[in-house]
């Protein structure tokens, strides 16, 4: 199986990827994204420091990253906990003389920031989408708040689909909890996708693996990809 693997015209018949294929697919995906999806910033490849320096790999290990996608929400619900923590300290009196060179800004729309990482799961041998949201000050958003930011079709997809199961787990490289779309169904629906495309007479090349994968996964988190990306 391993020896018979072809990188270039790989048909993901079993719905899975090797780690080398993943980095090929990642490049294909980010190039494709850059060309067809210019309203978004590009995905960047974050290389990892190899843990096994003796093994010289052709493809470096890493993950794809798309960060600081901004979603503006008009009203930010007040966090009561935060208010109670912010006890006014009396030491702030008379600290700064009134300075009329400082612009007094009205309270802005609250921006929510989203980071997305596409990480290879060695145990499932499929890509996994990790994501998180946070406020402009850096405070993480809970899943409930995140769901409010998602378009309604994503929310219903989350409720109904058997494939889209959000969990909070440790990010494999950052070692902090991030949300992720659990990969255990991935292999199966990728298989379905590639069967439908191969029945149409074409095989799914490895460069397109992440594109078709993301066409499903991205919808769950409100990131649609343009149809042209799928050719």
């Amino acid at each position: 199986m391993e020896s018979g693997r072809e990188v270039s015209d790989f048909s993901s018949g079993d719905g899975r990827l090797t780690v080398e294929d993943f980095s090929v697919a990642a490049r294909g995906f980010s190039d494709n994204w850059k060309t067809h999806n210019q309203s978004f910033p590009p995905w960047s490849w974050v290389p990892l420091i190899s843990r096994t320096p003796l093994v010289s790999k052709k493809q470096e290990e890493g993950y794809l990253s798309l960060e600081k996608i901004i979603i503006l929400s008009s009203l930010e619900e007040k966090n009561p906990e935060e208010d109670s923590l912010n006890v006014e300290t009396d030491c702030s009196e008379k600290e700064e003389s009134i300075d009329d060179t400082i612009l007094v800004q009205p309270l802005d729309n609250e921006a929510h920031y989203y980071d997305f990482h596409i990480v290879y799961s060695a145990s499932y041998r499929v890509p996994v989408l990790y994501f998180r949201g946070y406020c402009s000050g850096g405070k993480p958003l809970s899943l409930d708040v995140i769901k409010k930011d998602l378009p309604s079709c994503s929310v219903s997809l989350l409720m109904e689909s058997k494939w889209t199961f959000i969990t909070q787990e440790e990010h494999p490289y950052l070692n902090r909890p991030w949300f992720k779309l659990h990969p255990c169904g991935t292999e199966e629906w990728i298989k379905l996708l590639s069967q439908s495309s191969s029945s149409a007479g074409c095989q799914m090349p490895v460069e397109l693996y992440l594109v078709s994968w993301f066409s499903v996964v991205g919808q769950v988190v409100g990131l649609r990809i343009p149809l042209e990306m799928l050719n």
Partner: protein
Amino acid sequence: MAENETSPTILQFAPLNSSVDEGFWHSFSSLKLDKLGIDDSPLSITGFCAPCSHPQVSNHLTLLSESLPSDEQSLIANTSHGNRNKCPVPGILYNTNTVESFNKLDKQSLLKAEAKKIWEDIQSGKALEDCALLSRFLVISFADLKKWSFRYWFAFPALVLDPPASLVELKPASEYFSSEEAESVSAACNDWRESNSTTDVPFFLVSVSSDSKASIKHLKDYEACQGDYQKLFFGFYDPCHLPSNPGWPLRNYLALIRSRWNLETVLFFCYRESRGFADLNLSLVGQASVTLSSGESAETVPNSVGWELNKGKRVPRSISLANSMDPTRLAVSAVDLNLKLMRWRALPSLNLNVLSSVKCLLLGAGTLGCQVARTLMGWGIRNITFVDYGKVAMSNPVRQSLYTFEDCVGRGEFKAVAAVKSLKQIFPAMESSGVVMAIPMPGHPISSQEEDSVLGDCKRLSDLIESHDAVFLLTDTRESRWLPSLLCANANKIAINAALGFDSYMVMRHGAGPTSLSDDMNKTHRQRLGCYFCNDVVAPQDSMTDRTLDQQCTVTRPGLAPIAGALAVELLVGVLQHPLGIYAKGDNSSSSNGGNIDDSPLGILPHQIRGSISQFSQITLLGQASNSCTACSETVISEYRKRGNSFILEAINHPTYLEDLTGLTELKKAANSFNLDWEDDDIDDDDDDVAVDL
């Protein structure tokens, strides 16, 4: 100063805001715990900034985990140098060890001290070489690592010009420049941002020659830009998005320009971008007029401002990261996740809430008790109470999976106590308690002095059973299971019974209590399943009775308890998931294709399971409740309800009483065969490797 009739517009700057990535606090907590301890000397840190890249949102000065001085073995290659979106800015962090010292910090002098550094860097020319020094910042913080909460306050020190600069003109760069100039400025900016050596240099000079050609130079090359045909703009990465105001970095920039080059009129260029390219619609060009100082000396540091406001107020910010840092919460969500995955992948109709809320009472914390508790935890059950009167003996830890050698040194810890401690160590979210208590047994006469304490134990046991949802009978004698069987039948609680022989085991669930059916409208045709003691009269339908078991045997093969303990828990889970619960009828494995599977997502729900490890075999059995059972029959239960304590005392003191009551002789025979005296049991007798009549 306002001598003119029309007072000039004061140039106002949009304050910079901070953003602290969760990762910063994670790394800072490790640094504090592993290295700094209570050392609260200031730390040099690196903030990151970038030009504004969104028409409605300003950029922040950001702290990331790599903002801290690090020698850690991060897996991710350090990409922050030469990263266009992470221009480094030097900062200093004053972390205090208490909230009081945080509040007491002299913020004014801290700000002054940083402003002084900026001023000195301007005077010495260092700021020309490394212009990020102009944007120095400072943070004070108090990290409450026990609660994973952080209180902090940023300051972006800005030197105050006195008198303030006034604004002559400010407009989008696309309007200010001719289209040729704009094109050339864009191209030059894009080159500057593309090059690794300049992309993170946030202050620069833009010169536009008379033939509309723009070029960008470092601040230190100011003199070289002094041509006759050139317009010179002081460019900087502007974090601010507003079309009406420049951002904060311009303040110290103007201080530098005034102090170094003595310019009265300053053309500034607020560089902003979108999608990684210069955006001259967002970018601004402005003209400021600055009053040159007369008697100002390099030694006198100007006044400074810059403490960040929190939603318009002068208060610190705070953040709680318990959700991502509290290890107990992380363990809970990981355990929940595991169960959710099981439901998601294999058992869509599994009701996890029923499991996490069920309260289990384990009578006996020996080999079986330990095993049952472990498997219960695996199913996400959080609430476990142990009842046991023994202590952990030296022989126990190898077989009793909740104990270690430490529990038996000295006089030995009570099992009920050690087991609770162990559960908490395994999973801190367990709600567990232990009761050191012996279970009163029938046919073991007691003196009148002992009566009160024995009746007290009965009352405690009864209360315990009432306050739990499911009871596991895992004690080491047959007799000690009698009272709990009776109390469970009386209270109609789920009872699961597991017993071991030398190489065989029996696991069963008791049926509902007799009175529970009288309430039921159609009790006709509904038979109760038997209890442990019903087996005395009603033989199981399928017989394994040709086996003989040595009743005195006190050893079992070590593999039995894990098997039987696990089966006992799976049986409970089956009952809890079954729509009829305790009333569910008993399935046989042979009846598995009888269509009963739909009732429970887990498959069939047998009444009894017997297995032999010598044969590596296991069968399911069904036995109905007996009318003459000494523990669960209507006669016994109603007598108990009528006479209460005196019934119990009679059962305890008169070996023939129960038999008289139900017409049974079996129990007496069995009771006579035990020669243990539970009152005087010492540790050596407390061998939980059960040998009971199967």
